[in-house]
C-alpha cells in the first residue's frame, strides 16, 4: 500500500502528514492528479447459466478533480455496474475488459484484491442508495465510520473517535457525539443518508461515487443532500453520481453521460445535454419529467403517439395489447353512488395515537377536503406529514377520533355517534379502491398475474368463473398489458408492469374513487411517465376520481386539479393546483417548491 500511496488530503490537523504533493510526484507514471478517471471502451459482461450477458458496452468516461459526472439512465442501463467496476466490486461472475481503465492514475485492471482494498474507502468513497439498508442495522453509525478508519490503519482510539465525529459534522449532522452512538434505524432518512456519506468520506477520498444518493428522499431533504454533495465537489473532489432523475442531475453535474442498454448514447456538458438533447432517448427522459408539464400533456413517448381520448392499447414496450378496450360489464351491485354529491368528502378529521411517556401524538389534525367527481385531488407532504393516516381514514380502515367522511354522499366513516360499522361499509367497499407504492408486496406471491386480478373479481362475486377470466383479460388490456402475462408471476414483471397489474386489480370492481398512495414513487422517470399517462386515460374513459398522495411536487402538480399541502398532520394550504403552484401562499409551500430541482429551459 505504501508504494502506491496517492494524493490524500487530511484536514483536521491529525497526526497524518500532508503526503499529497510528494507522493503524487513520486508516482509520476500516473495522471499527475489531472484526471481522476480515464476510461476507454469499458465492457462488463456476466456469465449466467444461459450464457454471457453484456451489461456495459464500450463505455468511455473521463473526470477531472472538482467536477461532477452524472450517469443517467433507467434501471438496467448499466450505470451501477459501471460504478462498481470503478471500485472493483462487481460480482464474481463479471468479466471486465477495457482498452484503458485508469482510476486515480492506476490501471484498475491490474489491481489485485489487496491493492483494491487500499483504494476503496481511502481514495474512492462509495455511497449507496438507501441508507437504511446500506448501513449495518445492528451497528451504530459511529462503528461503521470507525471501521473505515480501522481498515486503513488509522490507530489511536481518541483520534479515531474525533475523526468519526468530525466526519459526521462535515456531513452536516448536528450532535455528532449523540448520533455516532445511534444505529441507522434510529435516524431519520436525511440523517441516515448523511451518515452514509460520512462513512464514505471520512478518509477524504479524491473520488466519491454516489449511486442514486437522493432517490426515495423527500424534496427538502433531497435538496440538502445535493448541497452536501456539491460541497464535496467544491473541496476539489471528483464526484460520480448515478441517477434516473434528470432534474436532480441538472443541479449537480458538470458532465452528463446518458446510458441505455449498457451503452452511452449521449454525453457532454450538462447544460448542453439538458438544454439541447440530441439523442431521442435523452429527449424522452427529459419529456418524462412531470413537473413542468401541465395536466393533460402526455409524458411518455408511447402516450404521445396515441391520442389521449383513444383507448390505451399499447403495452409498456409499445406493442399492441391483446384485446381491445374492456367491454363494460353490468354492475351487479346496487349502490347508491350519488351523481351530484362529491366523490369523497372529509370534514374535520383528526387522529392521535398513544406515544411514549403516555403523551398522545396527534398525527392528523383537523383535515378537511373535497374530491369532486372525475377530478384529482393531490395530497402532498413529506414523510410524517399525516398523508398515509389520512389515506387510511379515507379508506375506512382507520377510525378517526373526530370528523366524518362521505363517499358519494354515503356516510362512510365518522367518530362518536356518526361511527359507521364495517358491515354498513362493506357494501360500498368496491366504490373506493387502493393502489399503493409497492405493488409487489400487495400481491400474494403465490398468485399469478391473472389470479391477482380474478381474485379481486371473486370478491365481488360477479358472473361465472369463466366470465371473470374474460373480464380479467379485458382489465389487463385496459391497463396496457398483453394477455401473455396472465400466467406470469408478479415477481418476474418489471416495476411498471407490476403497477399496471395493481391498477387493473383496483379497477376490477368498477370503483368510483381510486386512492393512489405514492403510486409512481418507486418507478424510473420514464416508466413513471407511462403510468401517469395511463392513469390520466383511465380517468377520462371511466370518469374516475383520484385521491393522489405523493411527496413529489412535480408529480402532484402534473396530475392534480386541486392540491392539499400537509405538514405535521395539518393542512397548511389547499386550492386549485395551477394557482397554488404559481402563487403559493404559505412559507412552507414556497420552501417545498424551492427544494424541487428544476431543469434549465430547453432550447
Amino acid at each position, binding site marked *: 500500500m505504501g508504494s502506491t500511496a496517492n494524493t490524500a488530503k487530511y484536514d483536521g490537523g491529525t497526526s497524518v502528514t500532508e503526503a499529497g504533493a510528494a507522493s503524487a510526484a513520486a508516482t509520476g507514471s500516473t495522471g499527475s492528479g489531472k484526471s481522476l478517471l480515464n476510461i476507454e471502451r469499458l465492457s462488463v459482461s456476466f456469465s449466467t447459466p444461459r450464457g454471457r450477458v453484456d451489461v456495459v458496452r464500450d463505455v468511455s468516461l473521463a473526470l477531472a478533480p472538482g467536477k461532477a459526472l452524472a450517469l443517467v439512465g433507467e434501471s438496467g442501463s448499466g450505470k451501477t455496474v459501471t460504478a462498481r467496476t470503478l471500485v472493483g*466490486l462487481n460480482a464474481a461472475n463479471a468479466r471486465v475488459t477495457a482498452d484503458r481503465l485508469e482510476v486515480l492514475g492506476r490501471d484498475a485492471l491490474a489491481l489485485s484484491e489487496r491493492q483494491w482494498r487500499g*483504494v*476503496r*474507502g481511502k481514495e474512492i468513497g*462509495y455511497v449507496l*442508495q438507501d441508507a437504511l439498508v446500506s448501513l449495518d442495522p445492528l451497528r451504530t453509525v459511529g462503528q461503521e465510520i470507525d*471501521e473505515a478508519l480501522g*481498515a486503513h490503519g488509522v490507530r489511536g482510539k481518541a483520534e479515531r473517535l474525533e475523526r468519526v465525529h468530525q466526519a459526521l459534522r462535515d456531513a452536516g449532522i448536528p450532535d455528532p457525539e449523540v448520533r455516532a452512538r445511534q444505529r441507522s*434505524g434510529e435516524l431519520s432518512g436525511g440523517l441516515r443518508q448523511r451518515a452514509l456519506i460520512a462513512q464514505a468520506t471520512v478518509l477524504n477520498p479524491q473520488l466519491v461515487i454516489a449511486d442514486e444518493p437522493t432517490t426515495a428522499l423527500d424534496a427538502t431533504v433531497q435538496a440538502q443532500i445535493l448541497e452536501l454533495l456539491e460541497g464535496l465537489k467544491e473541496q476539489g473532489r471528483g464526484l460520480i453520481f448515478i441517477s434516473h432523475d434528470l432534474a436532480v442531475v441538472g443541479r449537480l453535474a458538470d458532465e452528463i453521460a446518458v446510458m441505455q442498454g449498457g451503452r452511452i448514447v449521449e454525453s457532454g456538458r450538462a447544460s448542453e445535454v439538458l438544454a439541447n438533447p440530441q439523442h431521442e432517448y435523452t429527449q424522452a427522459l427529459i419529456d418524462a419529467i412531470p413537473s413542468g408539464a401541465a395536466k393533460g400533456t402526455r409524458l411518455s413517448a408511447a402516450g404521445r403517439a396515441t391520442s389521449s381520448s383513444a383507448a390505451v392499447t399499447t403495452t409498456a414496450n409499445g406493442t399492441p395489447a391483446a384485446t381491445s378496450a374492456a367491454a363494460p360489464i353490468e354492475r351487479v351491485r346496487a349502490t347508491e353512488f350519488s351523481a351530484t354529491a362529491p366523490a369523497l368528502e372529509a370534514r374535520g378529521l383528526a387522529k392521535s395515537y398513544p406515544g*411514549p411517556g403516555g403523551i398522545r401524538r396527534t398525527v392528523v389534525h383537523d383535515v378537511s377536503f373535497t374530491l369532486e367527481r372525475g377530478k384529482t385531488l393531490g395530497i402532498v407532504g413529506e414523510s410524517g406529514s399525516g398523508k398515509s393516516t389520512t389515506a387510511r381514514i379515507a379508506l375506512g380502515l382507520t377510525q378517526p377520533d373526530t370528523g366524518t367522511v362521505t363517499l358519494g354522499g354515503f356516510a362512510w366513516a365518522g367518530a362518536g355517534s356518526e361511527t359507521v360499522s364495517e358491515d354498513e361499509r362493506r357494501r360500498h367497499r368496491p366504490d373506493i379502491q387502493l393502489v399503493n407504492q409497492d405493488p409487489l408486496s400487495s400481491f400474494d406471491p403465490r398468485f399469478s398475474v391473472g389470479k391477482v386480478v380474478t381474485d379481486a373479481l371473486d370478491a365481488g362475486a360477479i358472473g361465472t368463473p369463466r366470465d371473470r377470466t374474460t373480464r380479467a383479460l379485458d382489465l389487463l388490456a385496459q391497463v396496457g398489458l398483453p394477455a401473455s402475462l396472465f400466467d406470469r408471476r408478479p415477481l418476474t414483471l418489471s416495476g411498471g408492469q407490476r403497477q399496471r397489474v395493481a391498477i387493473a386489480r383496483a379497477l376490477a370492481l368498477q370503483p368510483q374513487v381510486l386512492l393512489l398512495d405514492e403510486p409512481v414513487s418507486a418507478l424510473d422517470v420514464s416508466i413513471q411517465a407511462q403510468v401517469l399517462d395511463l392513469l390520466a386515460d383511465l380517468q377520462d374513459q371511466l370518469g374516475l376520481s383520484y385521491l393522489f398522495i405523493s411527496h413529489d411536487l412535480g408529480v402532484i402538480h402534473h396530475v392534480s386539479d386541486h392540491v392539499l399541502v400537509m405538514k405535521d398532520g395539518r393542512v397548511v394550504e389547499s386550492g386549485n393546483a395551477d394557482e397554488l403552484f404559481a402563487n403559493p401562499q404559505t412559507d412552507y409551500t414556497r420552501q417545498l417548491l424551492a427544494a424541487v430541482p428544476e431543469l434549465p429551459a430547453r432550447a
Partner: protein
Amino acid sequence: MSTAATTSHTELPRTTATSGSPGQVVLKRAAGSVFVLWAAVTLTFFVLRLVPGDPVTTILGGHSAAPSAETVAVVKAQYGLDQPVLVQYVNYLAGVATGNFGTSYVFKVPVLDILGPQILPTFQLAGLALLFAWAIALAFTLLTVGRGRLLDGIGRGVEVLFAALPPFWVGIMLAVVFAVILGWFPVAGDDGFKSLVLPSLALAIPLAGFIAQVTRSSFEEALAQPFILSARARGLSDLAVRLGHALRHAILPGLTLSAWAIGSLVSSAVVAEIIFARPGLGRSLVDAIINRDLPITLAVVFIIAAVYIVVNLLVDVLYRVIDPRIQKGAAA
C-alpha cells in the same frame, strides 16, 4: 430463499425474545418460570399415576417379592401412599418448594443423593455438544456460503446429511472408528475431557446440521444486503465483512434454535450415555421409568424443565447483546 424476505434486515427481527426493559424481562421471566416448573411437575405427577403398577410393589423389590399385607401397609404409610392422590400431590409440591424431592423407591435414599452426581456429567456432555455443534455449523457457514457453486453445494449436502443422521448411529460409528480402530479416545467411561469428546460429537453432529441450515440461509441473506457492499467499499476484506457484519446477522436465528436444542440435548443425552457407558441424567431417567421409580422420574423432569428455563433466559440476554434493536423497538 434469497428472493424471499428482502426487507427482513431493515425490520425488527421475528424472535422469541421477550420485549420490555431488562427489569421487566426478569420479572416476566421469573413469573413464567415458576409457572412452567409447576406445570411440568403437575403434569408428570398425574400422568405417572396413570401408569399401571403399584408403587408399593416397586418399593418392595418388584413382582417376585410377595409382601404380606402388613408390610404393604407399613410401606404405604412410610411413603405417604395411603393418602388421597391430591394430598400426596400437595405434599410433593411442598417438598419440592423446600428442595426435598422425596425418596427413591428403588434405592431407598433421597432422590438428590442419587441424581446429584449425575447432573454435572450430563451438563458437561450437553454443553460440549452445543459448543461442537456451533463450531461445526459456523465453520460450514463461513467456509462454504457464497464461495462458488461447488463449495456451496457441498456445504448444503453435508448439512442435510448431518441433520438426517440419528445420534445413536453417529455414536456407534465414532466409537468404532476413533476409539476401537484408531484408539485416539477411550471407548467408554467417564474419565476427563478425552472421554467426553466422542459422546458429545455424537450429539453435536446432527444438531450442527440443523443449526447450519438456519445460519446458512440467514448468512446468504445478509451477504446480499447493501450494507455488506458498503463495508466492502470502505476497504474491508471479504473475511472481515463475513466476520464483522454478516455473521452477526446469521447467528440470530440459530441462537433461538439453540435454546430449544440444549433442553433437548439434556434429555437426548441418554443415547450417548448408554453407548459410551457414561453416568448422567438421561440414563437415570430411563432407568427410573423402567423401574417405575416415580420420585426420580419427577425430579429429572423438574431439572430438564429448569434447564430449559435458564437456557432460554440466557439466549434472551445474548440476543439483546447481538441485536440491540429489540429493546429500542419495544420502547419506541
